[in-house]
């Protein structure tokens, strides 16, 4: 019903086709009621993809279907979607009530029905007290909730969120994130959420689409994407601090990199030139292992980040706050369980092995 599907969707800007391709063939199937997050760095095409679903951008090639209906040429208002913008996009001269009712008024929904829907949405979002106020009398978080209310009253098949939390301060961001999750649990409407923040992506997504330069790098659940990144880009993008990625020469059980010979306890899935990666929390300091020169220790509260060098390469290790703190200049020895090592092909940047 509210399912969304992309078939080889391509977007070009400019005339004569190949002038500027920003989206290179996206193929995704989204189930009804799923919360999908499109995440990626600035300029990767995620907002463009969202706007193509909304109808605010033309589709150069390919098909977009909302609930089995081809919507490439359908006007935004007829696509049964609702959108929440980064800058809220509330009508400044209208009250909160009128802002939420505007779309319904144009659709000639009867007055009583409009009242009912607006009040229900206001109750869900706890903005019932603000219905008579103008947007300039509200705080950022309240305005964003009004924007969400405006989307809810339309009772669409798909919700579209375009970086809605980016304009909020850190604390408000966490709060609104939880509200969005609550909303999704209550209403169960298919949602497409665009963000550049991987924390938002990890916490909100049922499935994630990681994009880079107009190409879909990986689609999967947050666990999939975090524990089994399909490409070095995904490996380096998800997770903070990022995964340490080293180009290595593997011979037998020895990986040579950065002027060091690192011993492996298990044979990697291939030999020769590879890229080896592990996450900061999976490198365990111990009595024996890979030698790391400590340069700096950062205190984060619940944990510490130890920055240092492994041979010529930089490295970050995450340790518990209670563990012994290494001093700068000290050498610690790291062990990484073979299951926590990620291997990538340096030519294709893709994952090798499971």
């Amino acid at each position, binding site marked *: 019903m509210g399912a969304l599907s992309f078939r080889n969707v391509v977007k070009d800007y400019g005339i004569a086709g190949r002038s500027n391709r920003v989206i290179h063939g996206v193929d995704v199937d989204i189930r009804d009621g799923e919360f999908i997050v499109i995440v990626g760095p600035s300029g990767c095409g995620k907002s463009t993809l969202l706007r193509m679903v909304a*109808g*605010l951008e033309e589709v150069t090639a390919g098909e977009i279907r909302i609930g089995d209906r081809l919507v490439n040429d359908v006007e935004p208002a*007829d696509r049964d979607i609702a*959108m929440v913008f980064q800058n809220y*996009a509330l009508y*400044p001269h209208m009250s909160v009530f009128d802002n939420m009712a505007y779309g319904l008024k*144009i659709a000639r929904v009867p007055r009583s029905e409009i009242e009912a829907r607006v009040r229900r949405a206001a109750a869900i979002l706890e903005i019932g007290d603000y219905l008579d106020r103008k947007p300039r009398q509200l705080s950022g978080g309240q305005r964003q909730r009004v924007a969400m209310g405006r989307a809810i009253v339309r009772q669409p098949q798909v919700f579209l969120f375009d970086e809605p939390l980016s304009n909020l301060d850190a604390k408000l961001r966490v709060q609104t994130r939880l509200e969005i999750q609550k909303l999704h649990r209550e209403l169960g409407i298919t949602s497409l959420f665009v963000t550049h923040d991987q924390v938002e992506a990890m916490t909100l997504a049922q499935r994630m689409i990681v994009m880079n330069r107009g190409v879909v790098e990986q689609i999967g659940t947050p666990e999939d994407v975090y524990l089994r990144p399909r490409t070095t880009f995904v490996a380096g993008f998800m997770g903070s601090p990022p995964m340490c990625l080293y180009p290595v020469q593997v011979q037998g059980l020895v990986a040579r990199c950065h002027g060091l010979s690192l011993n492996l306890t298990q044979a990697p899935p291939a030999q020769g030139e590879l890229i080896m990666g592990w996450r900061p929390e999976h490198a365990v300091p111990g009595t024996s292992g890979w030698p790391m020169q400590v340069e700096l220790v950062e205190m984060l509260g619940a944990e510490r980040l130890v920055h240092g060098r492994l041979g010529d390469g930089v490295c970050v290790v995450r340790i518990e706050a209670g563990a012994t703190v290494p001093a700068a200049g000290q050498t610690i020895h790291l062990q990484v369980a073979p299951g926590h090592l990620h291997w990538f092909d340096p030519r294709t940047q893709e994952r090798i092995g499971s």
Partner: protein
Amino acid sequence: MVERRPVMTVVAHLILILGVMVVAFPLFVTLIASTQTAQQIVQQAPMSLLPGSNLIETYRIALFGGQTGYGSRIAPVAPMLWVSFVSAITIALGKIVISLLSAFAFVYFRFPGRMLCFWMVFITLMLPVEVRIGPTYEVVSNLGLLNTYAGMTVPLIASATATFLFRQFFLTVPDELLEAARIDGAGPMRFFFDVLLPLSATSIAAIFVIQFIYGWNQYLWPLLVTTDETRYPIVMGIRRMISGGDAANEWNVIMATAILATIPPAAVVLLMQKWFVKGLVDTEK
């Protein structure tokens, strides 16, 4: 204090007071002159700066016409006030409507020849009515619009300045507002009336004041297209009262008419001032 020197404050104040006097003194003299009789003005040189006692009589004759002490007949000014008012309002409102629509077209639509049209509008800034007076008169005359409100106002209604001002304002309206309206199902005209117009209220107020005063001050064009005395705007009326030659001028009535001519534009500015300030104080987002 200016630069921590009290002397400078005194100097600054003196200069400002001087400035105010240069601007306000002529108005003051006009007002005083309108309260005296014509003999008093002429006989006492320089004219006394104290208010006279003839205020009501002078203004009555000015507004409604009649015989004066000198025996000359004064045409009533009240109908001329009305003519000025109607044509100024028509010009102001006409300019606003046309400029709003053309700015809307230039900013929100793509059509072939768009930039060409835009530059053509720009070029008309070089064509005030004085430059095109010959051909415009001929057209108006051929259309039989002499001595009519239409003849007085229509050739003055197209406005490049207002179009530019509105265009600049429309460019500051965020794109997301348009997109949100599109998703809500608002077509272009719906967006224009429901969203753009309310947001433009302060710009419209500003342009209304400017164009009202422009329309009120029109002298050359009404002079050409009107021959009927009942269709004269007040600025023409003032001029006609000053007859060169031997006949004595009724200066008090002339001054009274001048004062009457300044009141409506001043009133418009004062009234609209509230709107300006309101728009500035309530910063919209």
